[in-house]
């Protein structure tokens, strides 16, 4: 066990875990954050996505000891009770079905738009392609991203 200090959504937390513990389990089980979710544990689906240094990062394959910068989770997007424009667009477009993967959809979209505020349709498809949804909400996810990119939120 090691003592590791993490900054998550603006607050510092100290946890006692094995250094190799995937960040996902620390976020969920020690910090009580339910935004990031276990989908594959292999970095293939994106359900566990958080943002570190502006990069959409798969927390299920990120050792906790390797995290050196602040972590933002889905909960952190609406800090202060104000929804992020992407979250509002998700509601306006009525995107989710079961919603289990939507953490990854929203967090991946945020990193995409932070990098490229006005992506083309092809850039949205490419940027989101490795974030899976088994309810198949892709069409509405893309519509919601376009709402934000087009300033329609």
């Amino acid at each position, binding site marked *: *066990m090691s003592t590791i200090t993490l900054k998550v959504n603006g607050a510092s937390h100290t946890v006692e*875990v*094995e250094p190799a*513990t*995937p960040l996902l*389990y620390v976020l*969920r*089980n020690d910090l009580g*954050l*339910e*935004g990031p*979710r*276990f*989908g*594959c*544990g*292999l970095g*293939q*689906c994106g*359900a566990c996505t958080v943002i570190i240094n502006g990069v959409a990062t798969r927390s299920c394959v990120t050792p906790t000891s390797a995290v050196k910068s602040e972590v933002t*989770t*889905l*909960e952190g*997007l*609406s800090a202060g009770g104000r*929804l992020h424009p992407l*979250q509002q667009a*998700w*509601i306006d477009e*009525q*995107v*989710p*079905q*079961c*919603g*289990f*993967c*939507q*953490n990854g959809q*929203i967090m991946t979209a945020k990193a995409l738009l932070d990098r490229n505020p006005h992506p083309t*349709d092809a850039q*949205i*498809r*490419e940027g*989101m*392609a*490795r*974030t*899976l*949804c*088994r*309810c*198949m*909400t*892709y*069409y*509405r*996810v*893309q519509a919601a991203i376009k709402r934000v990119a087009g300033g329609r939120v």
Partner: protein
Amino acid sequence: MSSRREFLTTSGALIVSFSAARIAGPLGLAAQAAGPYPDPDFRQLDSWIVIHEDNTATFFVGKTDCGQCTGTAFRQMMADELDIAYDKTTCVMGSTHNTVDQGGSGGSDAIQTDGWPMRRVAAEARRVLLDMAGTHFGVPADALTVSAAVVSVKADPSKRVTYGELIGGKKFHVALTGANIDATTGAAKVKPVQELKIVGQSPQRYDIPAKVNGTQKWAVGVKPAGLLHARNVKPPVAGATLASIDESSVQKLPGFVKVVSKGNYVAVVCEREEQAINAARQLKVKWDKPATAALPASEDLFKYMRGAAPTSSSNPIVVGNPDPAFASAAKVVEADYDIPFQGHTAIGPAHATADPSNGQLTVYSNDMKSYGMRNGIATFLKIPRDQVRVVWMEGPQGYGRTAADDAGFEAAYLAKELGRPVRVQWMRNEETAWDTKAPAFACTLRGGLDAQGNLVAFDYLARAADYNHLGYNEADTVLIAQLMGTRRAKPASGSAAAPSEMYAIPNRRMAMHVVSLPLVWETPVRTGNLRDPNGPQSTFASESFIDELAAAANADPVAFRLKLLTASTADDSGFKRARSIAVVKAAAELYGWDTRPSPRPRQSGNILTGRGIAYAFRGQTVVAEIAEVEVNRATGRVWVKRLVCAHDCGLVINPEGLKRTIECGMLHSISRALYEEVQFDTEKVTSVDWVSSPTLTHADAPAKIDVVLVNGDPNPGRPDLPHYGAGETVCKPMLAAVANAIFDATGVRLRRVPFRDARVLAALKAARV
């Protein structure tokens, strides 16, 4: 004492409980209740509706919502009958201790079947409240009017009283009648369609905000005090027998609590989640392989299925005299269609948490049939039903008999063994390999055309690999019961489906057989219901073949179908046929269908475009779907660029919610058309992650989807227009629509699902396209 009764009798907590129900769903209520958990009485109005002092209402319904707008729709229907504003209502669903057993989800019956008792009990509550208001004002009930939960005297509108003032915080104590839950009714009648005001609007789904802002409470996140984490150690091959476990391989690992094993079931339990994952990987287990091969390899599956002796055969459905009609036909066409096993493959692997506190057992699960899970677990563990409850919570998609069933039983067993709360979480490879599958189908179709191109004879023969089809939450077929050796002796017979179109074909024969794999117990290749269990398979074959017949008759695919739907017949199917014609025409019109035979004339360049139509019934719901595809001649990649759906499910409760469900259902079937196949060698499933089990991605999303909601009822304005089911019907025709579009684009007919790039490219090359 149920939590609902608790907050009825604790009036000071009414507002708090109401908010908890709105925000936290069942968990906020569940945390208070210590059991036992007797069944809520469906013949008591108080089991369904609670009116609060602040003039709001909570509806308690025995259904689960898998994110398809059913909860929102229930509120609309019940609010409309009760005469209360939609936003003054909440809905509590799916937990066995505080809602009546309406079966959870299944069969797309939520609105179609369960909506009726909900409407009737809400109408009864309105009637009772009007009676109470009549007593209050000293006037007969028919001298009153009600709007937005406020009753007023027609002759003197200044005399008004709210529902909350009449009964808020108190019980109705009104008995209902009905032989069963579906038949539950009071004395009041439901409103005619024309008087429904909230039904037909599209309030936003109430479950969405929490799903996008991170506050949603999921079954996967429940953490009772003292929670332990378990991981299964599954047999490495189908039919393996446990020889020995070397517990010393994990005993010194941090957080280790216990290895639990019985028969061939093995699990490792640890204090922390990552510890359980690690310990399950490190546990040394010796297994003996079965003496004979458990499976045909997936590349040999269809040859195996066509050669196997059926375990059961249904009586053929025969119309007219098919054999003489084939003998005299001018042209006979025959084709085989193959559809592999396809999995649920949920985005979040199966999970459940069980808590044995207070001598009771509470299971937190996203299983869509929570009521069946409760009964099954009580039977499996041999504990009284009223000591078990299942708290239903949100989770990854559940479109049928998923491994959520299995995980629920495993968590319950482990919690009982350890005497502490236990959370079971399947890993990705377990989910993808061991989840229940939709059965594989091998179909042979034959059609006879006369000299004028009329379809005069039709033969459909299906063989489904569906022996030992698993039911829901059965104590003697769930995976842990199989592995422990407490399974039933006789497998369920399974079934194969017939096509569900309404074509008037004078001579027709449909024969269905079930075949068995060599091993049907303790195998990852196990079948269970997946989103219209057999419809996508049978409809892929039948609606592809109708297209082949249209091409053989040099006829336009829409015109060929409409001709079959307008042909005179002696049977009594006019109602369904009229609605079939309505959706086929509506889809063609919305798409801008140009009438011509398929395939379209040969195209130059690498991108070949084409369009295909298919249609199907499910119950009384009928859909026609058109896919427009681009086929890349150089790579074999297929992109479904545009989708059109004409959908008739009678009275629509929430049009925008329904459209989302239709869109996603169609895309699910496109994923099945283009990517999904469970692959295996002779002893194990080799599809174990998202690389070996590909799915549709963002890169495949259509550029445009158009949905038109049709009311094709011959008497569209009837006051009793039924609300039929929606959800699964749209999954049926999509595979055929895509195949038909590929044929239109390329002239190549794909008869084996899925249409992955390599298969398409090989077919194009073989046909020199």
